[in-house]
């Protein structure tokens, strides 16, 4: 067997392709749901961290620090294998989404906080001077400006979440990586793994390029 037949075996790849595509759909689904939940909860967490009542502010800070420190795989294993001992039995999909969202929430909160704090004080003062309430100040003045600042780091974080979906294979989730390893076992050939790697690249490279584009545009507009 030569190198081509081992790693780039066309027949094996064709056979594995349906499994890989199913895995890809699962991976994208995991990613999209986790990204959405992470963004929404992260924005709330950032506002809590900045403007919540003092005790909640402290709780938010602890949350953000803890979930940025813990390795995602450790958290996932805890959620999937430890929670059942206290009667909480989550499917592998739910476990993965929960884990990824919890962690993404912490990172997203820090990104939003940095974006909000990057705004000049005068913007808040102008809003206060008009008599805008907190909600209107955020919706009409602060967040639209902060969003523009945080688009590049936020997109980066989304890429990380998508990549981390591969951890789901540890908890028997038939995502892209899991399907590839199974196809590899069935065919006794590693080509499906190469196929999976290529699909990950196909999915993520455009997003990575997008971050570069956003950053360049941001630099140009802030000049």
């Amino acid at each position, binding site marked *: 067997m030569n190198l081509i037949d081992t790693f780039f075996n066309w027949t094996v790849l064709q056979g594995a392709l349906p499994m890989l595509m199913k895995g890809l759909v699962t991976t994208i689904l995991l990613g999209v749901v986790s990204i959405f939940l992470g963004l929404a909860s992260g924005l709330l967490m950032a506002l809590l961290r900045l403007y919540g009542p003092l005790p909640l502010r402290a709780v938010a800070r602890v949350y953000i620090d803890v979930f940025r420190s813990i390795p995602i795989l450790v958290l996932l294993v805890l959620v999937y294998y430890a929670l059942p001992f206290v009667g909480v039995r989550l499917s592998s999909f739910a476990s993965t989404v929960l884990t990824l969202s919890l962690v993404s929430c912490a990172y997203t909160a820090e990104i939003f906080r940095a974006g909000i704090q990057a705004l000049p004080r*005068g*913007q808040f*003062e*102008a809003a*206060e*001077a008009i*008599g*805008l309430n907190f909600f209107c100040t955020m919706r*009409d*003045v602060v967040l639209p400006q902060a969003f523009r600042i945080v688009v590049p780091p936020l997109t980066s974080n989304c890429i990380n979440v998508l990549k981390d979906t591969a951890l789901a294979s540890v908890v028997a989730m038939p995502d892209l990586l899991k399907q590839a390893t199974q196809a590899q076992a069935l065919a006794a050939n590693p080509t499906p793994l190469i196929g999976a790697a290529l699909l990950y690249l196909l999915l993520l490279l455009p997003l990575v390029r997008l971050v570069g584009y956003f950053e360049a545009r941001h630099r140009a507009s802030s000049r």
Partner: protein
Amino acid sequence: MNTSNTALIQIRNLQKRYGEFTALHDINLDIAEGEVVVVLGPSGSGKSTLIRCINLLEDYQQGEVRVDGQAVVRGKSLALVRAEVGMVFQSFNLFPHLTALRNVALGPLRVRGMSRRQADERAAGLLAKVGLAEHAHKLPSQLSGGQQQRVAIARALAMEPKVLLFDEPTSALDPEMVGEVLDVMQSLARSGVTMVIVTHEMGFARRVADRVIFMESGRVVEQGRPEEFFTAPREARTKAFLQAIHH
């Protein structure tokens, strides 16, 4: 609430400290409805701090500020009081993501509860009043400094405030743009708007002010009608200040 014998703005025993440093010492000041007050003084004398205390952009340790009888204190009533007090900042502080029109319309829309159409109409009218009807749909970054500051004045006026505060409104402008902003302010003063203005524009103070207040080291040193203030100041420190700026 505002009867003839109570001033529109009442400042009583106002004291503001930054740690050990006292920025305002026991300020007492009444400003009547329709009055145009110009606050002068060297930098660091506390003039900006004083007007920022009026709408509580700056917290203070002692004393009381009332606008039209309403105490300006933290809490639910604060936004309501602030809506009655327009403010124009040195650095304009326009909302950069909104057009001139939307900058002006935001307050009426969100605070006064107007419909989008009513708010836009009022905004368009005010932009025309400050000579910017053509520029209503431009973003602040597409306007000159003088134009931005005129938008900011229109934005403050859009709330139909009882008083307008100006915090060094021309200090960040290129010299050739100072005139257009002062012209707008002068016509407002003529139309009877109550104004408190911190500025270094002596000529403007002389032309427009009903009363000049001179501050130094966090104290009101002297106040009076501009004719007397500029020609026959009583206090030595006022004389020194006026002499310094005339050289």
